[in-house]
């Protein structure tokens, strides 16, 4: 996929919704790699997870709100990543970024594998941590059995 290469090249503008463990870690990594990062969260307390070295923007607001996305600079963003705890919130925000603001790369976390399948069919790039982690555990256990 050419999009993967685009994100790898330097100076991308990336908006992350949800400053939980994954969101904050990813934001710090992208920031350290030289990208322009904006992190959105409804709770200012979540921003404590960002390292002191973080040079991006932390913005309080609900990412499912079109206005907040605009404030976060979504119109000029190269990528949008939806990482809140709510599958539906992620789905909605990701669709707004993709269909209203035409963000070139949108990735969405959906815990529920069935819902993930539906939205993949509808053209969202969706990842299910449930599936991925269960898969990892399964493979680990399978290997152990074989040894």
């Amino acid at each position, binding site marked *: 996929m050419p999009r993967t290469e685009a994100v790898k090249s330097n100076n991308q503008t990336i908006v992350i919704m949800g400053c939980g463990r994954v969101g904050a870690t990813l934001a710090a990594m992208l920031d350290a790699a030289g990208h322009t990062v904006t992190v959105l969260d409804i709770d200012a307390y979540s921003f404590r997870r960002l390292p002191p070295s973080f040079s991006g923007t932390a913005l309080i607001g609900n990412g499912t709100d079109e206005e907040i996305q605009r404030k976060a600079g979504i119109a000029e963003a190269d990528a949008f990543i939806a990482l809140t705890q709510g599958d539906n919130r992620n*789905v*909605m925000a990701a669709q707004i970024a993709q*269909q209203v603001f035409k963000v070139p790369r949108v990735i969405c976390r959906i815990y*529920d594998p069935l*819902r993930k399948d*539906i939205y993949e069919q509808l053209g969202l790039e969706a990842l299910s941590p449930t599936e991925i982690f269960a898969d990892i555990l399964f493979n680990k256990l399978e290997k152990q059995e074989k040894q």
Partner: protein
Amino acid sequence: MKPLYIVIIGGGNIGYYLGKALLGEGHEVLIIEKDARKCERLEDELGSCCMRGDGCETAMLSDAGLNRADVLIATTAQDEDNLVACQVAKYRFKVPRTIALVNNPSNDKIFTKLGVDASISVTNTILEHVEQEIPAHPLIHLLTMSGQMEEVVELLVARDSPAVGKSIAQLRLPADTTVALVMRDGERPRIPGADTLIRENDRIIALTTPSSEKTLQKAVMG
């Protein structure tokens, strides 16, 4: 009309009254609600028409027989839940008509764009009524002239205004109040005489004082 199978997501006030009305019209109704207590109340008052669960969960919707549903109505307080319920119903279960309550009025257009057949924003609906039924601004302050305690105001003559059909003189305005201009659609603004008749939809620009403003407003707005 042939009875429809209607699935309602959310058993709050809207879901409850909607369900009640649709059952009364002879339709088959199923309400999906997460909260056990709300489910109990729905069952007590409407009979067995409630399922407890998450209305966005595919397995749940499958159990609810969504593939034979004619309409899905999402009425929760969370727009994202309403959107996903409608999209799953439409794209996974091919429900012909999906209707969503929109809590944030700016989501109205977005929902339509994302495939929801009809979205209803309570805020927008109320706003439309306010704009239709109540004159937007009864009296607009245009300018206050400093030092002289005089001000310039604009008033719209509504259909039910007591000034309609009267001449300026018949308005019996206070001595410190002068009607300076009458503006009428499709005509140049005119400086009225004492016998100029006021018509519906006229916009009046008047010179008045804070103490006479109320009397002027009463004469024009009722």
